């Protein structure tokens, strides 16, 4: 009731919230991230248009990374069918399909549910193959360590300019199907120029799943990230480590986990948007005096 004059009118209360609409998703993503980090699993969110070559890239990754001895795993999202997951299984990547029905993107909750009956903890590198879509998946944090955007050379050089939100969210852009370049009127320098106008720290690798071109650099990128996520390959067996947990194992692996918003591959200090917290693990020597 109005308390000013006692007129009996109800009171209008303005409630200031200034809260992200995706706050609920971001909470779920943080939860996923804690799990991935605690288990030393490098989780990657793989996004790109339908037909950009996401699944073929993963198939080729299984071949290219075979010598590394990593255990790969994937969940693969599509509106319908589990075709991609079956393809990945055949390529030697234990996989599970997430059928989203009408949903055009994955969210953190969908990923979380998919983890429940999939042995993701046993993997070293875990791919979350998003729904083929260059728009909606970009704004949903899933708990990944990094976003990898797949852009094929057949899509047009100005694609990044048309979908800036996706490329702004990317940590790495894989330019795929490069074996087709001689057959197309496509100028790769224009693709890179477009990327530089939407991605402040452009990082790209040109690859071909068919010929294997560029896959070595892609595997090296994975290895670099993995070194930061996984404490020298040793898993925290059973111990449920959390962000900021200090694992005081006085052998030689003395790991400090720092979780902060930003980008895993670089120490970007941007404060905007996506809360992409990552654990960076530094060996003892980083801190030794």
């Amino acid at each position, binding site marked *: *009731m109005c308390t000013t004059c006692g007129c009996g009118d*109800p*009171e*209008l*209360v*303005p*409630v*200031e*919230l*200034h*809260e*992200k*609409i*995706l*706050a*609920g*998703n971001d909470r779920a993503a943080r939860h996923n991230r804690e799990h991935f980090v605690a288990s030393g699993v490098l989780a990657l969110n793989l996004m790109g248009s339908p037909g950009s070559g996401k699944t073929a890239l993963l198939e080729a990754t299984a071949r290219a990374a075979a010598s590394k001895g990593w255990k790969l795993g994937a969940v693969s999202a599509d509106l319908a069918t589990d075709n991609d997951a079956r393809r990945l299984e055949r390529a030697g990547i234990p996989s599970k399909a997430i059928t989203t029905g009408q*949903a*055009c*993107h994955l*969210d953190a909750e969908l990923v979380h549910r998919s983890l429940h009956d999939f042995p993701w903890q046993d993997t070293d590198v875990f791919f979350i193959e998003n729904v083929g879509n260059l*728009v*909606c998946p*970009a*704004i*949903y944090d899933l708990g990944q360590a990094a976003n990898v955007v797949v852009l094929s050379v057949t899509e047009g050089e100005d694609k990044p*300019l048309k979908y*800036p*939100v996706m490329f*702004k969210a990317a940590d790495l852009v894989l330019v795929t199907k490069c074996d087709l370049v001689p057959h197309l009127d496509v100028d790769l320098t224009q693709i890179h*120029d477009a990327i*530089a*106008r*939407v*991605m*402040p*720290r452009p990082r790209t690798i040109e690859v071909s799943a068919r010929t294997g071109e560029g896959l070595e650099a892609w595997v090296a990128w994975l290895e670099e990230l993995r070194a930061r996520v996984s404490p020298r390959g040793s898993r925290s067996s059973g111990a449920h480590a959390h962000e900021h947990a200090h694992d005081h194992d006085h052998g030689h692996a003395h790991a400090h986990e720092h979780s902060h918003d930003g980008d895993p591959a670089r120490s*970007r*200090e*941007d404060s*905007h*948007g*996506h809360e992409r917290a990552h654990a960076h693990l530094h060996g003892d020597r980083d801190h030794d005096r």
Partner: protein
Amino acid sequence: MHEYSLVEALVRRVEAEAKGRGAVAVHEISVRVGELSGVDPELFRTAYETFRAGTICEKAPLALAHVAASWSCPACRKPIARGAVLRCTACGEPARLDDGGDALMLDRIEMEVP
């Protein structure tokens, strides 16, 4: 078309806030949408108009504030020209998105409390 799932999250959040404060009605909700938020404001509005029926937001208009995206140098603050490469021409630093350019924010709910 993720605008529907965003609007659903928005309306659920407003409902929870209204319930927590014992509100009987919601009169207006204010949302801020940045140019690089990944949301089309018109689609968002359409989704809201569809979704609010039968919810506590039924009679609450949606006030949408648009924020243009701009980039600047984190070191020397020099603005980056629209559409230019996202790197400062003066100091070579990668650009940083200015505040609000990717916001997707529930700013305010005006509610009726008996």
